[in-house]
């Protein structure tokens, strides 16, 4: 039974868990159940990827209504890869959450916190699984609303403003997407993505379709924090609880990039994009975004904020691949989606371990701690190397494909920008390392109170650190799946 309902269970398991966890009393039970569910979802996502990596497509009819009338879950290699990222990061972060959440979130909110976390997971997984564009909007709202609640639970008062800012920006993004979907529905009378893809080509010249496309692109550019629509992201990531930052930075923007891929290549089709200025626009925004946001990152005085600006720059790399619109470019996008989730997950979790001991993520409070917390520090170093793109780490693979794609298109300027962005990454990662290791301790902190982070925090962090190194050598899963996905996204090219 599990085999035939695989794709559905990935969404329904966390959905069922959320209300159960919300009723449970505070204590360890909500955490335990959430962790077990996240592991089973991860197992299911692995099985799903194994199923589709041979080129299969899974189609699941909700309620037994055949598509295009009913809602269809349609899984190919691209969905399965993103679902694997989301559930994998969740499976690593839930064990980590126990200690970190006990420290950062008041006891009486624990069960509600895990319920919101489960809903966020439901939403993100739902977005990746569904083949219905309106259903996608519903899951988008589930994941967004729960993440606003999660962000607002941060310790500092600014968490509330940060969450409110994200609420406004995110709602505008979601509304734009909905307007776009509404226009598409008005023109074609269908909401199923495959059905849309068949009906759209004859309407390519129609102005409504162009408007719909613009609305959807701007809406999701807000959600994925594409420069210059990124303003909500640094605050939200800085003030959210550490667990939430690690989870959202590794999954939320990745899912939004996936939706971009899906809408551009599966729904509208690349021949539509070629006649619009979309790809040029993406390239310009990405180039400016990579450089400016990396510069901003260098000047930050808060470690979480520094990494948040770096995240905006990294989103630029992912969207560059879409802007190229070539097989190599899309490979780079999908591979970087995966690898960036690994590196930012590892880095934010290591920072979370520092926050666990010190209670602050500001650089002035963190100085000199590396000597007292060697394992956490080492995790930051390896994560940072991966972020820069040093050979032997996952980051290198994605940069490599990106540079290859740029060279193939002979965009020499972009090659330079990618390398410049990496150089800037060297500077801001070095800034972290310098503060942590080479500066003397802050006077206000008694060094004897600072010990290595507990194992419950270290082990999950190091799982991701090892993954960073592993996927730097073995690219079979990432590049292999990406190539399989691109065969379906860009059918004419292969």
């Amino acid at each position, binding site marked *: 039974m599990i085999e035939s*309902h695989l794709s559905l269970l990935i969404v*329904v398991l966390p959905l069922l868990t959320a209300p*159960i966890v*919300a*009723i449970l009393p505070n204590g360890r039970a909500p955490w335990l159940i959430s962790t077990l569910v996240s592991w089973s979802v991860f197992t299911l996502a692995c099985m799903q990827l194994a199923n589709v990596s041979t080129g299969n497509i899974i189609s699941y*009819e*909700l*309620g037994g209504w055949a598509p295009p009338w009913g809602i269809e879950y349609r899984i190919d290699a691209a969905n399965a890869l993103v679902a694997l990222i989301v559930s994998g990061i969740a499976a690593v972060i839930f064990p980590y959450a126990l200690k970190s959440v006990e420290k950062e979130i008041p006891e009486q909110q624990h069960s509600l916190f895990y319920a919101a976390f489960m809903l966020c997971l439901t939403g993100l997984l739902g977005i990746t699984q569904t083949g219905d564009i309106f259903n996608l909007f519903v899951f988008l709202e589930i994941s967004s609303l729960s993440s606003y609640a999660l962000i607002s639970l941060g310790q500092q008062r600014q968490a509330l403003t940060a969450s409110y800012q994200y609420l406004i920006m995110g709602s505008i993004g979601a509304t734009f997407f909905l307007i776009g979907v509404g226009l598409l529905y008005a023109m074609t009378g269908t909401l199923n993505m495959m059905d849309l893809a068949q009906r759209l080509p004859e309407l390519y010249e129609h102005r409504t379709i162009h408007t719909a496309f613009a609305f959807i692109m701007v809406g999701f550019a807000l959600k994925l924090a594409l420069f210059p629509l990124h303003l909500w992201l640094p605050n939200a990531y800085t003030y959210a609880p550490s667990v939430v930052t690690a989870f959202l930075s590794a999954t939320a923007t990745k899912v939004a990039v996936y939706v971009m891929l899906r809408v551009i290549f599966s729904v509208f089709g690349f021949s539509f994009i070629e006649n619009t200025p979309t790809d040029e626009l993406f390239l310009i925004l990405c180039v400016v975004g990579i450089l400016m946001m990396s510069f901003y990152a260098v000047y930050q005085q808060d470690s979480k904020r520094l990494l948040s600006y770096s995240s905006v720059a990294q989103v630029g790399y992912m969207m560059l691949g879409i802007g190229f619109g070539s097989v190599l470019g899309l490979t780079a996008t999908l591979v970087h989606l995966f690898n960036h989730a690994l590196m930012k997950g590892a880095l934010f979790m290591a920072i979370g371990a520092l926050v666990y001991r010190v209670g602050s993520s500001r650089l002035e409070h963190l100085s000199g701690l590396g000597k007292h917390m060697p394992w956490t520090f080492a995790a930051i170093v390896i994560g940072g190397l991966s972020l820069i793109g040093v050979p032997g780490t996952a980051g290198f693979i994605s940069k490599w494909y990106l540079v290859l794609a740029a060279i193939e298109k002979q965009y020499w300027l972009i090659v330079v920008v990618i390398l410049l962005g990496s150089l800037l990454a060297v500077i801001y990662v070095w800034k972290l390392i310098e503060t942590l290791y080479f500066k003397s301790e802050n006077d206000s902190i008694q060094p004897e109170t600072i010990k290595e982070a507990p194992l419950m925090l270290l082990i999950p962090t190091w799982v991701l650190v090892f993954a960073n190194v592993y996927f730097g050598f073995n690219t079979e899963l990432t590049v292999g799946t990406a190539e399989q996905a691109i065969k379906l996204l860009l059918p004419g090219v292969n």
Partner: protein
Amino acid sequence: MKHNLILRVVSKFLIPLIFLFALYVQFHGDFGPGGGFQAGIIFSTGIILYALVFGVASAKKVIPPYILRALASLGVLIYAATGVASLLLGGNYLEYGVLASTQVAGQHLGILVIELGVGITVMAVMLIIFFAFAERGRSEEECE
């Protein structure tokens, strides 16, 4: 509100009717206009009217917040569990047809149960939001 006799009498008279109408909208939703969402809202207005006239504290005695929280979760559970039930009976998720002996009866039963879940959650969440706003700026003692 001790002196507003008319208000108190009229609302006491109206509240049962509001509940009755909510239940009508709830269970007639599959034949006429209505359904779980509307019914949940109407049901919650009955209690909100009670809170407006007799005070938030006495409304909280009628429905304590911890029950509201359980109800909000229960509704979602009913919805999701109906889907799982149809999975276990051999259909796809939320395929109501397999819930009863015939396709039509199954569809009927399925939508009723689903809408009941929606109604319970909407009612509970509306009241949670109302209480959250009504309590703003008051201390704990004032509310109790």
